[in-house]
């Protein structure tokens, strides 16, 4: 009895030592051997701070938005769910008074009053969702894009409560049966995780413009906010633009020319 306990303790001690020493050994190992080197794609589109300008003057009716929403949702395998409660939206349209809450007034001109506005993740400068997330499953990249790690998300939905723009959706059920035509280039999601617009980070990485930009006939422009010669800076300099709920200080990166 005594003997076996002693040998057990010995074994346990050695195991613990081994486990404790492993990270140290790993560190040595990694300094010696060359791991796979990662080269950035030469064609990738980069920016110090990505931003988007939506020229709402170039839209006339709801039909103008359909190809934009469809392009985004198709490329990203966003499911079409019939139950309203389970709905998932990356980009969608709504009225001025809902997009720019508490900014409408009785005598708003007819065009703005009846024109739908595009709504999507604002990729905030100070994203409340990133601050709330308990696992850093949602995070802000250096270039300002707010992303989701679908495999780390525990589905607590704290980010959804935190987002002041209602830009996040939750997979209340398995979305895969509701993806009409699967795009193999982009992952599908599983039930129980949060998702949202990713500024087409996967497309920028291979030198393509975001899907909504491509489908917008020039009404949506993305570019580098920190580059004084960029197209977005040019648009911002020459047009009056508004952002959603600027008083919250989140610093949304989506600008609207009204």
């Amino acid at each position, binding site marked *: 009895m005594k003997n076996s306990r002693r040998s057990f303790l010995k074994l346990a001690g050695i195991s613990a030592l081994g486990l404790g020493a492993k990270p140290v050994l790993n560190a040595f190992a990694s300094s010696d051997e060359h791991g796979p080197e990662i080269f950035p794609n030469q064609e990738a589109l980069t920016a110090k701070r990505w931003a988007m300008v939506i020229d709402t003057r170039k839209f006339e009716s709801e039909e103008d938005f359909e190809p934009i929403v469809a392009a985004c949702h198709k490329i990203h395998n966003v499911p079409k769910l019939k139950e309203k409660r389970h709905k998932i939206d990356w980009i969608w349209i709504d009225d001025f008074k809902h997009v720019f809450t508490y900014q409408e007034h009785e005598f708003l001109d007819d065009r703005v009053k009846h024109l739908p506005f595009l*709504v999507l993740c604002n990729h905030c400068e100070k994203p409340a969702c990133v601050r709330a997330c308990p696992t850093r499953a949602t995070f802000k990249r250096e270039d300002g894009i707010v992303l989701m790690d679908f495999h780390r998300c525990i589905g*607590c939905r704290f980010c959804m409560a935190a987002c002041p723009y209602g830009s996040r959706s939750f997979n209340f059920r398995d979305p895969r049966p509701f993806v009409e035509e699967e795009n193999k280039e982009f992952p599908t999601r599983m*039930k129980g995780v949060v998702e949202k617009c990713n500024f087409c980070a996967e497309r920028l990485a291979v030198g393509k413009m975001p899907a909504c930009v491509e489908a917008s006939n020039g009404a949506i422009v993305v570019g580098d906010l920190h580059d004084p010669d960029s197209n977005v800076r040019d648009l911002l300099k020459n047009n009056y633009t508004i952002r959603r709920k600027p008083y*919250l200080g989140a610093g949304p990166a989506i600008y609207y020319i009204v």
Partner: protein
Amino acid sequence: MLELAIKGGKTYWGWILSLLTIIGIAFIVYLWQLDFGLGITGMSRDVSWGFYIAQFTFLVGVAAGGVMVVLPYYLHDYKAFGRITILGEFLAIAAVVMCLLFIIVDLGQPMRALNVILYPTPGSVLFWDMIVLNVYLLLNVVVGWNVIEAERNNIGYPGWIKVLAIFSIIWAPAIHTVTAFLYCGLPGRGFWLTAILAPRFLASAFAAGPALLILLCLIIRRVTNFDPGREQIQSLAKIVTYAIIINVFFFLCEVFVVFYSRIPSHMDHIKYLFFGLHGHNALVPWMWTSMLFMVTSIILLVNPVTRKNEKVLAFTCVILFIGTWIDKGMGMISGGFVPNPLHHVVEYAPTLPEIIITLGVWATGFLVLTILFKIAVTVKEEVSGV
């Protein structure tokens, strides 16, 4: 001491069995939720937290409320409460167990729950909530168990237990403060974005927790040979009185600020809850019932005649508990999400499976509570030789 929990009469086992039945049914429904996803609940993109998180919030309060018997005994040497501190500690354990279970059943990916520890994120309030709740659970388990064991062996409890007990007194407000911070730090939700939220949570906690404890004391007196004591119950009643008055006062402060300033993003939530908004008014009758119950309980508690009558006091505690439960367990969460950030009014109501799972968690809590109270009361009976 656990063996004390398996010696009981027919009523005891009947009660345990009925709790186990509810737990069993709820567990099957939970397996369904695990398989299908949270889509079997009434939650949506707009109201993304519902009944589960509401119960969690309310029960953190009940857990913190347990401190109201521990504090007077350890800090003010109020001897009378020495008889029932163990009940407060064990109630806290059962309540925290329910809180943790409500968090688990609310997760979309519960198997990944440990990611919170694997990728610790001090910037997230949820990370801190996980810490404070688990530490509070541990404190109450260690303190409660050692105190009741010492009592059984007719010896004083070790000195370090008192240190831990005092630590748990500081810790109790912390758990509910951190829980309030989950909500009141969020920029876009006018209903929660108020500094009075944490104080309000604490006031309602210190009313609901001790009110439940009074009810439990009255039940214990009836079904066992241990009498928690008339003085003890009356002292608890006074604590409940002040706490519920402060709770309603804090709420009225909020109402003043919101409606005198007339800022729509803050007004609309309270309007929705109490009067309905754009024709949506599912919660209106509930909220007025809650108010009526809380105000009635104040009247019955302030008046010494009604407070000293234990039958009336029991009734008062029941309506107070229901009133605070509606206020926090239903209105507080839905109210924050309706209207949504785009100012659409999307209402929420729990579904049947959601309610069954909720009942299952409550039943688990009461199972833990029953076992712990059974142990505590049996020890008390042994010691007093009845």
